[in-house]
């Protein structure tokens, strides 16, 4: 099998999951598309360096994608001032009217402000430790903790509302 075909045979079953992973991290489909395209090309160029064979491909590819996404986030961070923990303002709440009636966890997560959504996704989808999140986003660990704490409170509030609305139907 040609090099290209070998790559596609491993890549195609993963691409839907990879796309949504990028979407979750970056918050929109356009950036997710860019990130997936860039990550796929990077992976293809380095395909011969993959160790562990086909079984290792999904996690290897996913890691490349996450690195590509966090690089994009860091670029965004250059133009969006990063607040210090003490600068974080009063907690925002996600209005239940913004969410569909059958909303689920993703609907609640995507409704978060970007700075909160990113830490939630890197933590609970990508299983990153908090100090690793701080490193890849280039923000202090204390900021990551504060954002995650705030995000979890907002998510809990939102999901309680969604559960209540579902129960009321």
């Amino acid at each position: 099998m040609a090099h290209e075909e070998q790559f596609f045979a491993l890549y195609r079953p993963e691409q839907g999951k990879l796309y949504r992973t990028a979407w979750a991290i970056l918050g929109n489909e356009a950036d997710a598309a860019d990130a997936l395209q860039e990550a796929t090309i990077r992976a293809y160029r380095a395909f011969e360096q993959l160790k562990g064979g086909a079984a290792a491909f999904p996690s290897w590819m996913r890691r490349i994608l996450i690195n590509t996404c966090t690089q994009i986030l860091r670029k965004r961070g250059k133009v969006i001032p990063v607040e210090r923990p003490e600068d974080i303002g009063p907690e925002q709440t996600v209005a239940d009217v913004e969410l569909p009636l059958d909303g689920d966890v993703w609907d609640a997560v995507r409704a978060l402000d970007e700075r909160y959504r990113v830490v939630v996704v890197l933590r609970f989808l990508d299983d990153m430790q908090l100090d690793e999140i701080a490193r890849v986003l280039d923000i202090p660990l204390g900021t990551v903790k504060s954002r995650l704490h705030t995000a979890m409170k907002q998510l809990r509030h939102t999901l309680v509302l969604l559960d209540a609305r579902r129960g009321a139907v």
Partner: protein
Amino acid sequence: MNMCSRVQTDLEQLRTGELLPEEESTVRAHLQECATCAKEAVLLEAFGERISKGLREWVEAGTVPPMLAAQIESSIKLESRAERRRGGAPWLRWRLPLGVAAAAVLLVVVATSVGSELTQQLAAAGGVGGLFQTFLGRSLEDRHGTPEVDPSEPPVVRAVPVNKLAEMLGITVQVDRAEFGADQTKMEYRIRGEGFQLPNGSNLALLEPVLSNAGGRVPFRNLTVQQQGDDYVFQAYFDPVAAGGKWTFRIDQVPRTGDGSAPSSQVAGPWEVEFEDR
């Protein structure tokens, strides 16, 4: 920040054992005394699992839009073709004429021995300096053996606004910007006009652009495209080159739909834009 607030921001790390021993002792001692925080810890455990499970289920159900899948496959085919043109395996891409290669190696040795300042000056210079930058960038990537991004070192990219048009035969090519990076050169441009159509994924190579300067043509790598209203917005990637000087960006032909009586065809240009990085 009071003790309860501080402890509650540490609960997630407590849950997964990421706290330092002394931090963990402090948090656990507080949980023994504070019913509110203890209750919060129990809630967080279950809630974290719900978030994790919900996100994973959403990701597992993912599919890629067909157009994106086609673009990516097309990019890989272009990459594969460019790789073959460059000489196959990645390590063969950097076969240089013997004299130039020797000069580059000599520069690596000299620059390494005299420090990073000269390295930067050489990398920023044109001519052999550009080759040096190319050589250095690729050799570092190969040495690491991974395409992963080192988050502690954001890539240095020099962005040059271009904002120039080339119009001909009812087709407009607008070049927005150029980016000269250590590991690639990127051109952003858009094409619009009556009858312009995107070829299907496997034929995207028909739109392969040319970037050149006095030193010759820059090796092309791949192409991506997205539709934005009436525009098709392209990102073309080339091998890394030293920034500076005069550049020409050219598209030789574009595909166009027929008028109903004639089939689709290639319309010959070229559409050419010159720009300068001062």
